[in-house]
């Protein structure tokens, strides 16, 4: 199989959740609403957004933990929805996930060696000696000492646990690694170590990361491309350099200006935007553009028609009526 440039492609993905009271549907949340993006092979794409923006749900839909209500997911030009369930499961082995909470995601009653080897057992890879060798190899790759293998998760520090989670995901040699806020439970120094580890693992290889984070500074450090979500929709996407240097959507601008930096010089000169109010209720999102209720530039059109993503330049896309009108004038 020849490898295409695009490792993973998400096309018009939608995920709906129904809120039920005694089997009666009370409301529908469009947690992910018509989201499309591509992950280029060997690069890192960050999905940023606030609580409830649907960023984790996208990852869960890709790996099959929640069912998509629409759209398609393609890995190496193979569309999951066109495969039978056995082939789809096999294809999913090429996508692995690291979860936010390193305590909750490791079985407390399994030894580290068994935790790391489990994906090999599930995918029926190698015999026992092969697996032991592979576990040892992957352990050196994530900078863990072999004596940890006989321990249990509670005997490890937070950083070590997250390395185990990464080792377990990498052992089946996936093409895409989904990382759901993998650093938010770690202290700043440990966080920096894990960031360096992830960068080292990716270096020169074909492994792609899809990285969900609420930390924009972190996204700007590790990612090549970024997708900004608001209430389940993409408001802005593109290369990190373009989006962070010239944020075009008013939400992205507000989000970026709200990030505190520890640099007094930047803090003194930087313009700041304090958004008013909270994100709207996802059960009852505003009509048209979902950001319009907090947007200073909102016009009549914004409440009627939903803005579609358009290209500012080739690697920078925005969904905003006001901006689109300005540019086309």
């Amino acid at each position: 199989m020849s490898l295409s440039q695009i490792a993973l492609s998400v096309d018009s993905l939608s995920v709906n959740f129904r809120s039920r009271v005694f089997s009666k549907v009370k409301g529908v949340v469009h947690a992910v609403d018509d989201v499309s993006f591509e992950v280029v092979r060997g690069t890192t794409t960050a999905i940023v957004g606030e609580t409830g923006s649907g960023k984790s749900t996208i990852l869960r839909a890709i790996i099959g933990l929640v069912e998509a209500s629409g759209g398609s997911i393609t890995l190496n030009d193979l569309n999951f929805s066109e495969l039978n369930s056995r082939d789809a499961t096999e294809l999913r082995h090429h996508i692995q996930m690291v979860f936010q909470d390193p305590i909750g995601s490791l079985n407390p009653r399994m030894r580290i060696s068994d935790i790391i080897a489990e994906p090999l057992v599930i995918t029926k890879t190698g015999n026992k000696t092969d697996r032991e060798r592979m576990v040892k190899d992957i352990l050196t790759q994530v900078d863990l000492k072999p004596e940890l293998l006989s321990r249990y998760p509670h005997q490890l520090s937070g950083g070590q646990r997250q390395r185990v989670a990464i080792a377990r995901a990498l052992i089946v040699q996936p093409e895409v690694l989904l990382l759901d806020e993998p650093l938010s439970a770690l202290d700043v120094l440990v966080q920096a170590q894990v960031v360096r580890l992830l960068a080292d693992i990716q270096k020169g290889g074909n492994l792609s990361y899809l990285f969900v984070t609420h930390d924009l500074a972190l996204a700007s450090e590790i990612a090549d491309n970024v997708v900004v979500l608001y209430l389940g929709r993409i408001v802005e996407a593109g290369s990190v350099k373009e989006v962070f240097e010239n944020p075009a959507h008013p939400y992205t601008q507000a989000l970026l200006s709200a990030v505190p930096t520890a640099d007094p010089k930047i803090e003194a000169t930087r313009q700041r935007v304090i958004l008013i109010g909270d994100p709207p209720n996802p059960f009852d999102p505003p009509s048209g553009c979902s950001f319009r209720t907090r947007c200073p530039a909102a016009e009549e059109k914004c409440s009627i028609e939903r803005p579609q993503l358009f290209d500012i330049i080739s690697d920078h896309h925005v969904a905003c009526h006001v901006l689109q009108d300005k540019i086309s004038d």
Partner: protein
Amino acid sequence: MDKTFVSKAVSASEWRSTPVNSPSLVSIRNLSVDFWRVAAPPALNNVFLDVLPGEAVGLVGESGSGKSTLGFAIAGLLDSNDVQLSGEILFKGQNLLTISQDDYRKIRGSKIGYIFQDASSSLNPLLKIGKQLTHPLMANGGMSKADAILRAKELLDMVEISQSQRRLNQYPHEISGGMKQRVVIAAALSRDPLLLIADEPTTALDVTVQAQIIDLLLRLKNSLSMSLIFISHDLGVVARVADRIVVMKDGNIIETGGVEQVLANPRESYTQLLLANIPKLRHVDESQSLRFWGNNEP
């Protein structure tokens, strides 16, 4: 160097000679905290810290650095069955470690307000917001019910919660996380404290809501002329809030100084290490134009 800027560097003879009527609101002298039941180094190790009236002090450090223990110690939230406290915590010249529990209770909750990280668990899920705000005002503040309700509404207005009258009749689960934290702040302010201790008050919040809460805390600090002790693991947040930064590690104060000085020219290698390892916002131009937002504050 200003004496109040010195913490650990003060020698024992020096601090004894400091006059009792020093200008500090809080003056912590040689404070050590040791957990009886844990065979570990002390949670706090000979800590010296002064907080001036109206000053915002940021305590930063990693997990286990003792920053929350210091906040707990000042507010008297450490149980003497669990810990051994030594040293002095002077609040307006009065040593909090030697006064009776009754006297402590009069100070805590009225003169010292405390905001915890997790607003949802600070609020009682079974009580309406109005009741949670009025009850302490009636029980400890001696207000009548009608006065307490008026005061509760005033407090909600103060923390900029819209439709305050309606909110009094809502339960915590009916409002958003940011609004819950505002209610917790309102509760902490209800008796006009001189000192507000905020322990990671924005960690559970989204960045845009975090910006709102930081802004609110700073405005309230100035309008009510309180002192603020802001505890956080996030140097960026502390840089926005504090006048002075105190860096902690393993129960010790590593470095203290004005925000600009600590962040721009950290003296200690640990502070330098922390600063070098926090993610930096890349590609962001300082003069970035925010074309949609008109004249915003710089």
